[in-house]
């Protein structure tokens, strides 16, 4: 039972194609497990169609149609499209866990991009807490395994937490099972206290 969902603003931005791509990757993982959010996403895409219909047309170059007609019979390029990894198994394939502190391991998925966002998997042993930290950019987390809790609530498989700028929290894996999350982080985190150095690779500071 999924209890934590992305905001409608996030889902509509994802449907519009205006959400930061790596945040979109985390939303996509949630969508594979959440029919309620897929319904909102569908409305967002229909809105996109309506937006197109209401645009005041802007003429293309005089030869645009002829140019496109001439391309219709060209062979389509081989589509090298692979499916985007959505499951824990697919996401971790070929990756490497690095220990970044007691009970905390990290697998880099995508290095920091032009928007200052990076994508990682974080794996936390049962009962382990991450040091308290706050956010100077948005963070999006989806649970792939286990559960964690912070002051915003308790998060289980499929739940998505959106941390806005200024979120100050101390997430802790629940006892019993290790916790694995996919996390998109924009900007830099600011750790409080002694653990800053320990989690340097995680925080990128």
């Amino acid at each position, binding site marked *: 039972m999924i209890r934590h969902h992305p*905001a*409608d*603003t*996030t889902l*509509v*931005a*994802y449907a*519009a*194609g*205006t*959400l*930061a*791509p*790596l*945040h*979109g*990757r985390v939303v*996509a993982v949630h*969508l594979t497990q959440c*029919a309620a959010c*897929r*319904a*909102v*996403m*569908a*409305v*967002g*895409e*229909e*809105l*996109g*169609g*309506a*937006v*197109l*219909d209401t*645009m*005041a*047309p*802007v003429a*293309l*170059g005089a030869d*645009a*149609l002829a*140019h*496109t*007609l001439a*391309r*219709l019979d060209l062979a*389509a390029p081989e589509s090298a*499209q692979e499916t*985007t990894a959505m499951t824990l198994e697919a996401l971790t394939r070929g990756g490497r866990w690095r220990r970044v502190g007691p009970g905390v391991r990290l697998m880099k998925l*995508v290095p920091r*991009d*032009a928007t200052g966002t990076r*994508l990682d998997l974080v794996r936390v042993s049962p009962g382990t807490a991450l040091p308290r930290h706050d956010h100077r950019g*948005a963070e999006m987390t989806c649970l792939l395994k286990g559960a964690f809790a912070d002051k915003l609530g308790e998060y289980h498989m499929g739940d998505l937490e959106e941390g*806005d*700028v200024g979120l100050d929290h101390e997430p802790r894996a629940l006892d019993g099972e290790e916790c694995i999350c996919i996390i998109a982080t*924009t900007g830099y985190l600011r750790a409080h206290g002694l653990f800053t150095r320990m989690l340097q690779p995680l925080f990128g500071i």
Partner: protein
Amino acid sequence: MTESRDPIAVFDGAALIGAIAARSDRAAFAALFEYYAPRLKAYLLRLGADSAFAEEIAQDTMLMVWRKAALFDPARANASTWIFTILRNLRIDALRRARLAVVELDPTEEPIAPPGADSVLDAAKRAGRLRAALTSLPPDQAEVIRLSFFDDRPHAEIERALGIPLGTVKSRLRLAVAKLRSALEGDE
């Protein structure tokens, strides 16, 4: 359209896409191009693209419509929604290639089927209802929707653009989406 009081007429592209799928109909393609390409270009310009990029992506989108016409299912989505998702994905790919972005969203090129959408009539009805509901939204709610599509920025920055708190942006959009959904799901 099935609902004559629609304030915004819906161009019926589904039949034209069907003609392309059935018999590679170039006249149908030209008619689709005439309607959509200038709107695709306008949308991209509105998103801040320069003219050359907007023109290129608009044409690439139409080319993809030609190639994928057989995959279009008029019961799942109306033509504008389907073409919008093609445009969105191509634009994201192009931005990624330009290293302005790094990773695609979901590579699925098909729009997500709305729950309960199981006939062409339903898809057309939904399109009409959505457009009617959109025009009756209060201006402040319509504005946050507009900004979701026209601003390549996180919503946290829309609050700066509108000078209202993020919580207000979110609650306005939530209200707007709820209204649109009830308009879509309501029986008449």
